[in-house]
């Protein structure tokens, strides 16, 4: 549990962080809440040469609601999301899911941007943002660009974020239709063995830990859109997925769970 030596840079601004990333190349990692990166470093599974600390950047935290859009700074902690009355009113699914991440200590340090950028298929928040049809705003040397959440997760712990880019904001639509998050695990603080996020009565459905990336359950969404019952729509939840095998579950059991949990989530969401 002793990490390898690493250089440390504290960025004073987003521009400075991007410049530091550009200078260090592939060997740099951004440090926000550190809840995923630091454990990997302590196990020496991650050995970046430079840590660019963005934890004290101003202007990247907070929740703003304008019209039909909720904008959330990338450094906003899970705890802030969990306890925001504004978010609970405008987008209760996201507020609820934030409260399901890890344990209180993790939620006080971990950030929404960090969770999305880490792109862990077992994480809760990517599924919520996918189900909500969110958009990610990233800044790089050439300026800002937007990436749809559905295009963001490209592989296991890989995203569309460039090596010299910084995730600055997450935007999700105001969403007060029927929603549910079914997280199945054996201990409260664990990653989901399987999770299912449902937004807007089943218009958006996303799966946790059912493949190499956080993913939308497009088949389920289509079935719901076509008027299928919760039972029938849930039956296709695992179609096209390649769920992993670990101590808690093999692929077949995960597929089974995804159907059970999807049915429960759709039913609770009023689909």
């Amino acid at each position, binding site marked *: 549990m002793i990490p390898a030596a690493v250089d440390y840079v504290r960025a004073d601004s987003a521009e400075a962080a991007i410049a530091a990333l550009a200078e260090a190349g592939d060997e740099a990692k951004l440090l926000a809440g550190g809840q995923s990166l630091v454990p990997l470093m302590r196990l020496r599974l991650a050995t970046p040469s430079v840590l660019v600390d963005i934890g004290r950047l101003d202007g990247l935290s907070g929740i703003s609601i304008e019209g039909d859009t909720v904008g959330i700074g990338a450094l906003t902690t899970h705890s802030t999301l969990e306890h925001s009355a504004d978010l609970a009113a405008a987008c209760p699914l996201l507020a609820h899911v934030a409260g399901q991440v890890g344990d209180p200590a993790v939620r006080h340090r971990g950030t929404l941007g960090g969770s999305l950028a880490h792109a862990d298929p077992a994480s809760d928040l990517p599924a919520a943002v996918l189900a909500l049809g969110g958009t990610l705003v990233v800044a790089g040397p050439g300026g800002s660009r937007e990436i749809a959440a559905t295009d963001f997760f490209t592989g296991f712990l890989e995203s569309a974020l460039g090596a010299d880019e910084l995730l600055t904001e997450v935007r999700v639509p105001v969403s007060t239709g029927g929603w549910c998050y079914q997280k199945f695990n054996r201990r*409260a603080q664990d990653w989901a063995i399987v999770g299912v996020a449902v937004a807007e009565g089943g218009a958006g459905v996303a799966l946790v830990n059912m493949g190499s990336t956080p993913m939308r359950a497009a088949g389920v969404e289509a079935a719901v859109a076509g008027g299928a019952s919760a039972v029938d729509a849930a039956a296709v939840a695992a179609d096209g997925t390649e769920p992993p095998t670990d*101590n*808690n579950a093999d692929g077949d*059991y995960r597929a089974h769970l995804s159907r059970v949990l999807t049915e429960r989530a759709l039913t609770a969401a009023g689909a």
Partner: protein
Amino acid sequence: MTETPFTGGIVGESRPRREDPALLTGEAKFIDDLQIPGALWLACVRSPHAHARITAIDASAALGIDGVVAVYCGDDLADAWEAPLPCAWPVTDDMKNPAHYPVAQGKANYAGDIVAVVVAESRYAAADGLEGVVVDYEPLDAVVTIEDAESDRVVIHEDCGTNVSYEWPLVPDPDAVEAAFADAAHHVTETFVHQRLIPTAMEPRGVAAVPAPHNGNMTLYSSTQIPHILKVMAAITLGLPEQKIRVIAPSVGGGFGCKLNVYAEEVICMALAQRHGVPVRWTEGRTEASGSTIQGRAQRQTIELAADADGKLTAVRATLLADMGAYLQLVAPGVPLLGAFLYHGLYDVPVYSFTCKSVFTNLTPTDAYRGAGRPEATYAIERAMDALAVAVGVGPDEIRSRNFIPTEKFPYDSPAGLVFDSGNYQPTLDRAKELVDWDGRRAEQVDRRAAGSTTHLGIGISSYVEMCGLAPSRTLAALNYGAGGWESATVRILPTCKVQVVTGVTPHGQGHETCWSMIVADQLGIDPDDVEVLHSDTAISPLGMDTYGSRSLAVGGTAIWMATEQVIEKARAIAAHMLEANADDLEFAGGNFTVKGSPDKEVPLAGVAFGAFTAHDLPEGIQPNLQAQVTFDPSNFVFPFGTHIAVVEVDEATGAVELLDYAAVDDCGNQINPLIVEGQLHGGIVQGVAQALWEDASYDADGQCRAANLADYLVPSAAECIDMKLDYTVTPSPSNPMGVKGIGEAGTIASTPAVMNAVVDALRPMGITDITMPASPMTVRRAIEVATGGAS
């Protein structure tokens, strides 16, 4: 029966633990908190293979890293050892005990076996150094299961010629066993597997060896349960003069048995501190601990019950196959023996048979883990009793009531050869049933089934008796254990009437200081805060057998009580002299000596203490100062008992098991501090529930642990726990003057079968009779699919 020798009004009160403020604020120092100037840091190169020949070790890259001082492999340190690491319990004369050297020589026998060590100026340099040691291995076939080990397909220790370490029978009357089973109206046979468990003390292990090169002294700080035993064993292993070794256990963050050992890292740090002439220290990492600290359980057991038509037991026969791991650690061979006498539980059984075979595997060594043998025995009999109830056609409560040892039979001569000290079992079952609303839950279960619910209710009983308070030295001798089971205490009253208690038991979270101060304060009529308890340092407390086997109160506490009584008797003689009265005419209460019939003639203990200190006017033949030292060797074990009932809900669709309710009614005799009893039960119960539902140190076919960190090894948190309903009966032990019994392991012993009986109870209508532990959602769901013919 509620006899108690205590009249001071302190014993029996629920008092917060006085240790806690220091522990909770960081004032207490654990091993890694110690500041040791000039210490070198040790890091261990561990075999990644479960079984491999070491063909070459190249440390040149490590030695080139800034801060790395030295690298040693097994051959480099071979001359440091006067003897291999100790196993103190050769249970049979022909037990196979392969030489276990702190650093492997030629072959690594489990993933985690130390093959080289790095010594560096900082812990960071030491960790970097690990990556610079290149070891060439020739992997060998690994023996991972006890069945494979028993077959001798691969013999791990060639000089032993077999993987079987020993076979140990306890069959008092073989013919009677055969006859009982031949005549049985009911014959139940059950086989259960106890998965490997990782003890997971909150504080991993750590060591710091501090030498004094000029005078030859060596101080060893270790996060250990056994500083006294460690001192003796380190002297033997290293060939150091024992009087030069001082062992100190600083604040120790839990043990559960895993720190009841003599570990490689302890003697390696000592050997290297001696070699380099400076302190050498090591702190275990959590992932490292999963392979380098002993593990628990790892047994396969078969139990057979013979019973008459009414379900009255006529014989119990148990056979055990136990996994010792790659080597025999300190008391590992004796762990099955600690359960060997209890496979008939708390039931009156005339005929008994137990046999055990223990084997080596290429896995981390096992040893004593909370309960050590008794959880396994209790699990077997309590699961089997439920099967017998089904066979007989009565309820699980009724089958137990029909078989409980009747109260009038105590002290009870057990069929295995023990004498159970005291017991009254039926009231614990009755009260536990009340606490969970047994009848209401049974009705709810029937209703749910009738309604076709897919969330199934299960109710499980576990009644237990255990043997603890280790141990009468003569009994240990009969079991071939390498030491005695006594405990020592010194009680001294200082000139200002404050008290020092010196004890040989070694707390690592139990709250000893609180309890010992309460006992002595109650006896002396003083404030518990005026009693200081000294322990865990062999220079301050030279005599001790340390803490394990729920022995601290029943053995160590008794020694303290006896020493205090001796101090009171000495004080009485001095007080009589001061009051010019006959000692027999003095009464001692509330901290004052008074003369019977002359209440105005009195002297406080403080006056006696100061008089004993000045020694200006002591009676003839009385030595100065108030002090007594006692070594207590118990005449028998103590036998706590109780009944636990778990109520669970099983979600048929997912296989998830949820604990809905839990009641525990325990009897540990007289209680010193009920708050601490409650805490021991809370923690113990959860630890046993964890074996039933969560924890599993599973290994793959190559001998790699698949649960090597706390993300994969599922130690439950507070979030997984429920409020437990606790109650007690009080049946004092006649084996010690305080009438106490141990309670440190009872919760763990009782809870695992209660939960598993509940899980099986929920699923029995589907035809399910067993679930392999832990009852994970996938395991339960698979069992449901097999039983109902459904598929995922």
